[in-house]
């Protein structure tokens, strides 16, 4: 597709356009406040940009470092490995500066003052984060290496949090005030996301196989599941409460096996209903895409219908089913937040409490781990899907 203008390159020193984008983002971020200094957790604060946020001249040091890193990113011929390194140093510097700013700005022993990350921090994080992911995606690492990158990233995040570097930042202060609740919410959130997924697989896989074997049922089953999917999540969660409340009261034995109209159960069921469609339809699609020749060959070898299904069709359909697992898991981790609104627990309870109290730090305490969970689940499952998909060049 070489067009005229490309054929005669103009002799301009080549600048990486992506690098330019990151530099613009980062440059803008340096103007914006790095942190918000607030007298307490509710009031609006005063924005401090990087040079002013750190004690002494350290702020200017960090500014120079950031500018240097962004400028290096402009070089067109910079190897991708170097680029990744720059991004990592940048991320470390940004996080370090936040931690130091929080430490420096919080008066000794003061439990009321809050130092919250502000727009400048998020944009720097974005700039270096993009630089890193861009380099990573263009490095075309092997699957093993990408698993390693995922684990190392998680390790680094854990290290940042465990080392106490960020202890004085508002989100961590908020966390320490409810560390127990946080771990309970984490478990609830995971139970909601994985529990509903497990149920969806338990019911959805056989259902998918059934509609594959009995085509007459397809329209009806998929139609009902489609309708379920159009009900807005908020309403579906809400409807589950009276429905399962009634069942728990009126169906003998239901309450004994855990059916309830309050707490985790209705939220779990709502997520389960949302998960059914992707599981059933992908099972069906997976089974249908099995090459008829393979199917015929298997019969020709003398396998029974049952053996063909379990030994040929299902294994071949597995990647498509796993793709559904990815969709469902990522979607459920996000939707589980809504459980917080109906008393179902999970990180959503922080988010909605935070919204009620206009406590932004509390919102972050709920939203950030949710995003992290969703990202990790997405990347990990992409890698798994790729691993079992027969030699398909997959771009993550």
């Amino acid at each position, binding site marked *: 597709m*070489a067009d*005229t203008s490309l*054929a*005669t390159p103009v002799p301009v020193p080549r600048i990486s356009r992506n690098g330019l984008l990151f530099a613009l983002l980062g440059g803008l971020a340096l103007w914006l406040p790095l942190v918000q200094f607030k007298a307490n957790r509710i009031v609006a604060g005063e924005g401090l940009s990087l040079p002013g946020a750190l004690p002494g001249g350290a702020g200017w040091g960090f500014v120079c470092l950031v500018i240097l890193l962004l400028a290096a990113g402009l070089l067109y011929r910079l190897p991708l490995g170097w680029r990744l390194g720059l991004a990592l140093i940048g991320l470390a510097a940004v996080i370090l500066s936040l931690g130091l700013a929080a430490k420096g700005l919080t008066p000794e022993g003061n439990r009321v003052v809050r130092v919250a990350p502000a727009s400048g921090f998020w944009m720097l994080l974005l700039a270096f984060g993009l630089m890193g992911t861009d380099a990573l995606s263009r490095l075309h690492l092997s699957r093993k290496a990408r698993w390693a990158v995922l684990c190392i990233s998680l390790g680094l995040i854990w290290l940042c949090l465990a080392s106490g570097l960020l202890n004085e930042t508002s989100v961590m202060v908020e966390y320490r005030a409810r560390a127990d609740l946080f771990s309970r919410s984490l478990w609830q959130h995971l139970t909601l996301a994985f529990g509903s997924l497990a149920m969806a697989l338990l019911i959805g896989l056989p259902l998918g196989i059934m509609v594959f074997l009995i085509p007459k049922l397809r329209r009806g089953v998929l139609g009902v599941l489609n309708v379920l999917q159009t009900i807005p999540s908020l309403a579906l969660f809400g409807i589950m409460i009276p429905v399962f409340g009634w069942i728990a009261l009126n169906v003998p034995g239901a309450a004994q096996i855990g059916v309830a109209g309050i707490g985790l159960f209705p939220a779990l069921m709502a997520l389960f209903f949302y998960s059914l469609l992707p599981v059933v339809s992908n099972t069906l699609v997976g089974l249908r895409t099995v090459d008829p020749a393979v199917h015929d060959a298997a019969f020709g070898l003398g396998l029974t219908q049952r053996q063909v299904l379990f030994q040929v069709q299902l294994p071949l359909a597995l990647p498509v089913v796993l793709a559904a697992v990815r969709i469902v898991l990522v979607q459920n981790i996000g939707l589980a937040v809504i459980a917080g609104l109906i008393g179902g627990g999970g990180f959503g309870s922080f988010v909605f409490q935070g919204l009620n109290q206009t406590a932004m730090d509390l919102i972050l305490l709920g939203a950030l781990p949710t995003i992290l969970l969703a990202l990790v689940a997405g990347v990990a499952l992409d890698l798994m899907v790729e691993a079992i998909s027969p030699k398909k060049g997959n771009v993550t």
Partner: protein
Amino acid sequence: MIRIENLSKTYGDTTVVQPVSLTIEKGHIAALVGTSGSGKTTLLRMINRLVEPSSGKVWIGDEDAATIAPHLLRRRIGYAIQGHGLFPHRTLAQNIAMVPQLLGWKPRDISDRVDELLTLFQLDPARFRDRMPHQLSGGQQQRVGVARALAARPEVLLMDEPFGALDPVIRAKAQDDLRDIQRQLGTTLVIVTHDMEEAVTLGDRIAVMDKGVLLQYGPPTEILTHPATPFVEALIGKAERPFRLLSLSHIGDIAVPGEAEGPALPRDTSARDALAQCLWLGRDRLAVQGGGVVTLEALRTRAKGDGA
């Protein structure tokens, strides 16, 4: 007239077209033949600057193509490709009207031109103007593709395997039609094909290319009787050569005075068809319309490439 001077194309270290020079007379058909990867398509695409030459010049008439803005150059040169490339979201009339519109013709003139071309390509304007391309058969689509390329009365028409997607019967008919229309309009035509048969049928001159090198450029008889290299010879296909030679001449040209039984053949019947008739009917001479006969002997001489 198109004059190509030392035209070459290099991508990085690989040379796709070694410097080529050739001239195509006004109103003639030049066929570029070669296997895939021979550089023939690249050579064609350098003429309308879809590919920018690495060196050399293209003259359209007495104008240097490099001095004309590429999109303006392309509007002056018709271009038809395999798979026709009709705009699927436009009607046939809109498709054909494209270039005249770009050139700012009056709507009235455009409309007249569309009807004229549809008629020329045996598509009834009343029925076909407002059809969408996907409502046509493959042969019809291909005809519209050529009609569109001719819409703005270009002096030059470039075609890249225009009949590649057609089945043999429709293909032969399309070739005949193209030749008629080209003669009628006097357009200079450059056609790329991998099919020597097509090149021999259509070309006034044939350029044989291999691995980016122009091996031979000359009239079909010369290519058939005096192949310059073993590659050209292989491309002709030794066994096919006599028949190809025969298909180049008409019986009117080799008729001798005499009498023969049976119905007389038209004078523009190809010698190849006449030979087939002789063999099929078991005769050694056939009558030619307007007097005279064509003998099996004369046909045999022709097939050897003598007396061309």
